[in-house]
């Protein structure tokens, strides 16, 4: 996993509520079994019309947001299906940080595992960031310092658990990390559970 430390990038506004993972990655592309190169399907039915032409009004088709590395989204971003193709596709577009008042939980968890930073912010900060985004501004995201710095120099805190932050900062592989730290602990838990509930594995 690519570490996430700092990111300075253009921020795109997508303030609509309940952008679900079907909008982010339509189901008809789910038969693809690769996880790389999915950016062309990201927001597909918003970005392209029935003939495959770009929809001029969609924010990610417009300059400067076409080059955005950060997204300020509306409430409940990434709700719906658990498909990890949604964060993979967004990542492939070059967007590594998403800021929203709330997230679909499975989507949020999927972001962390792909070196992406989901940031939950309060109403006032959200409004301020949307206004920055609308003006075509860039933001400085510093995960070490747990801050987002706005163009006017003011900062917004990034709420994140220590464990998730460490994993992102270091680009740790979740599975290898667990195996290295806990293999024996898991063995002991399993033995104990089987002894307590012998009917479970017969």
């Amino acid at each position, binding site marked *: 996993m690519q570490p996430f430390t700092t990111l300075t990038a253009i921020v795109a506004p997508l303030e*609509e*509520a*309940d952008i*679900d993972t*079907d*909008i982010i990655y*339509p*189901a*008809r592309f*789910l*038969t*693809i*079994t*690769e*996880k790389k190169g999915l950016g062309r399907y990201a927001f597909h*039915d918003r970005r392209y019309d*029935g003939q495959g032409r770009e929809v001029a009004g969609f924010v990610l088709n417009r300059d400067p947001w076409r080059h955005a590395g950060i997204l300020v989204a*509306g*409430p*409940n971003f990434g*709700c*719906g*299906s*658990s*498909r*990890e193709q949604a*964060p993979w596709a967004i990542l492939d577009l070059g967007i590594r940080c998403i800021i929203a008042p*709330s*997230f*679909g*939980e*499975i989507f949020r*968890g*999927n972001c962390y*595992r*792909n070196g992406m930073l989901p940031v939950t912010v309060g109403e006032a900060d959200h409004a301020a960031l949307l206004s920055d985004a609308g003006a075509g501004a860039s933001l400085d995201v510093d995960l070490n310092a747990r801050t987002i710095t706005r163009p006017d120099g003011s900062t917004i805190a990034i709420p994140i*658990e*220590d*464990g*998730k932050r460490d994993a992102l900062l270091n680009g740790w*592989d*979740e*599975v*290898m990390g*667990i*195996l290295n730290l*806990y293999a024996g*602990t*898991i063995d002991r*838990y*399993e033995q104990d*559970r089987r002894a307590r*509930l*012998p*009917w*479970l*594995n*017969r």
Partner: protein
Amino acid sequence: MPSTLYDKLWNSHVVAQEEGGISLLYIDRAMLHEVSSPQAFAALREKGLKVRNTGAFLAVADHSIPTRHRDRPIADPQARAQVELLARNAHDFGIDMIGLDDPRQGIVHVTGPEQGFTLPGLTLVCGDSHTATHGAFGTLAFGIGSGECESVLATQVLRLTKAKTLRVTVHGDLPPGVGAKDIILAVVGKLGSNGAIGHAIEYTGHAIRALSMEGRMTLCNMSIEAGSRTGLVAPDEVTFAWLKGRPLAPQGADWDDAVAYWRTLPSDAGAVFDREIEIDATKLVPQVSWGTSPDQVADVTGRVPDPAGAGDAEMAAKMAKALSYMGLTPGMAVRDIVIGHVFIGSCTNGRIEDLRIAARILKDRRVAVGVQALVVPGSKAVKSQAEAEGLDAIFRAAGFDWREPGCSLCVAMNDDRLPPDARCASTSNRNFEGRQGQGARTHLMGPAMAAASAIAGHIADPRDYLGEA
């Protein structure tokens, strides 16, 4: 201190506790399907890892498979490759795979419970957001991404933060013609699409206790539509009776030991929940969605709402956007919404009781002229049972297509897909834009209303078709 069902399930699965509130949670079982597992297996291969506990997994293809011509190879080459890849991965890693010709085949959330793979007191995950379905058994079940599938395959644990608890109490008896789908649509409407984020829901109260297991599965299934990964119903005699004798359920003395353990699981008297909501079942009327988010629901006897009456500007914008996509006018009667398609099926409403209630309405009736109607049983077992009861003949005589089991028009990954602007009365779980096909419009409802609407050609109140119970 009194504990909730969720507390008991969670605490009994904590392998280790890390700083900052993150737990390493043991996962007893997982179901795998063709869409969310390939990347997980690819990662195992890349890292040279094995599956830690092969017996903990059950694989079945459901999302991208066709519901017709199952005697032939899958026509879509990409879907065929995806299904073949699942079989190859299961074979190479030593996991039980239910093939398309296996009598156990079905949608993961229908097949798992049928086989007794789903049991109370366990943790169960699947790379599918409707995994909360299994919570109907008092199983701590939730949807995960592909990366988390990889973790479970290789380590049998997930790093998770414990949720808060939300108790949904449904008092009283459901009126005739009102079912589990109406309860959950009303709950999602009340909580909002993001109202239960970070919460594990426990459904309780007289109306919930009175539900069959099929109804409880319908209920828990749509918890994610309110933002919650987990919906639970405490196991009771209904649960035990349903599970007894299932192929993978404990047998003999083991069964008695298991039931004794399961009886300790329900929330203790006096257990405190972080949040509570209450619903009066006696006042519920059949529910139907009018918008593009599952919380946009109305009484079937009601009207399409007006954004002008919304509580705030954000809500008004969401409503206006939905009305525009759905091609509806504020204030119009819900029953005046004309439909051209009907879909009965999915992990929400593809079980035998769903087919029974729909068939009861459709018996000796015909779908309206111009309506295309489809019934897709949730599993082969459901299909066989329905055929043994003669339900297939009723559906066929009414003008429905009778198909092979799969996710079908709930996710529209196969060739069951609606054209732009098509409007569907659907027993599925999501009315998102494009969910049933690009530009297609979905109205969520229970199977009774779907059957009634098929006959009427517009959204219809099932109570008008059920007669005296």
